[in-house]
């Protein structure tokens, strides 16, 4: 477990840089992590997804891509355009939630 400073705030992160506590998340942190993930600007569509995921997280774990598309009405194709390469994982990272995992 390590800590790092993101946009002036010290937060706990895991080895891959995912926030350990969703409560430490701020919008400024989201903007900063999005840049690191190759998304220079978060548009209203991005925020819609991020906010929906935070509202529908169970135990700090982000919803699956299928849940996100059903819940927000944003198509899978569009999700890949908004969050290229692994949208479920990217959204989780930016929204300060746990990444989608298997059992091992």
């Amino acid at each position, binding site marked *: *477990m390590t800590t790092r400073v993101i946009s002036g705030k010290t937060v706990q992160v*895991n*080895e891959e840089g995912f926030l350990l506590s969703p409560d430490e998340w701020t919008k400024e942190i989201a903007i900063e992590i999005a840049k690191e993930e190759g998304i220079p600007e978060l548009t209203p569509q991005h925020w819609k997804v991020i906010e929906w995921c935070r509202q529908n997280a*169970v*135990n700090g*774990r982000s919803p*699956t*891509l*299928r*849940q996100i598309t*059903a*819940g927000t009405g944003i198509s*899978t*194709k569009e*999700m*890949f355009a908004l969050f*290229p*390469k*692994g949208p*479920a*994982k990217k959204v989780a990272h930016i929204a300060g939630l746990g*990444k*989608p*995992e*298997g*059992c*091992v």
Partner: protein
Amino acid sequence: MKKLLILGAGTAGTMVANRLSRMLEDGEWKITVVDQSETHYYQPGFLFIPFGIYKKHDVVKPRRDFIPPGVELIISPVEMIETERNRVRLAKDGRYLDYDFLVIATGAHIRPDQTPGMAEHEWRRSIHDFYTLEGALALARYLRTWPGGRLVVNVVDNPIKCPVAPLEFLMLADWFFRERGMRDRVELIYATPLSGAFTKPIASKLLSGLLEEKGIQVVPDFMIERVEPDAKKIISYDEQEVAYDLLVSVPLNMGDEVVARSGLGDVLNYVPVDKHTFVSPTYPNVFALGDAAAVPTSKAGSVAHFAVECFAENFVHYTDGLEMPHKFDGHANCFIESGFGKGLLIDFNYDVEPLPGRYPLPGVGPFTLLEESEANHWGKLLFRWMYWHLLLKGKELPLPALMSMAGKQRLN
């Protein structure tokens, strides 16, 4: 007389019937189980069929053999669950069954129809599955004469039943083709929507070398959009392409359609319930157990077994108006076949990821956790006997329902 109705006589439903028929007072309860077919499948055994290790007769038995005396078994599809009226409508004769308490254990099924191009003219020709008996048998026939080429295993999306089965399939395939002297003519590729074959930090560290040693390539972050069955390639939503000669798909898994029809499901037709007690947040007399439940644990027989143990004791208290004494912890315990007569064991729960160490088991253990051993392979094969003779019948096994840290090594 109070009525308990159980929908589904698979692993979870059968165990519930057996446990509760012993635990509930005779004469006070009437237990009824409904299933749409007569045959009980030992689903963990399907994995071995394509490689000729198990035959059909190893994995099927009549459901009735496992339903205890005094419990009624009705064979019929279920048309509708009417939770507002505490009754279920059967397809057979349009009959209604009333209940005081309902257990939904209707499982999860593969849905190749949900991926364009999959369930068309190449289905069960160059595109196969091993999550159904028919699929596993068809694949066994196909592999007997397959000349080699690119074998791609693709998981469409999670959650799936037995999440380690795709990896086991690949490791068994490596062994199978080596034994047949044709491994040099086979490429093994694993295309997964997750960020890697292993996603938990400790398992990744300890196991990632295993696939490399066996020459299994991983294509991560591959979210399949469609199959092009004539061009023999799978295409992801972000236009990555993976070509195959033989596609072994783990199609989208979904809960039963009756759950959707009855308005009780989430986006994948799983029933949302409390992850510790399995009671519905909307209907206090409705529970969902096994693969049918939308809980963040693995969809696996071992989980159903541990969950039913907690549930059964809770149910006896709950129906007497008492507080439920147990909180299920998401405990799972799975043998992972790694080929060449070896296997691994993982044991974990909602909060503790798979850890290395030893898993103690009186008489036969200990088994090695997150590490290959021959004992684990024998454990997996022995498990089939335990499943038919002890587990389904709800007999006591020397396995704790809640996860124990005994023998586990904490890293970090």
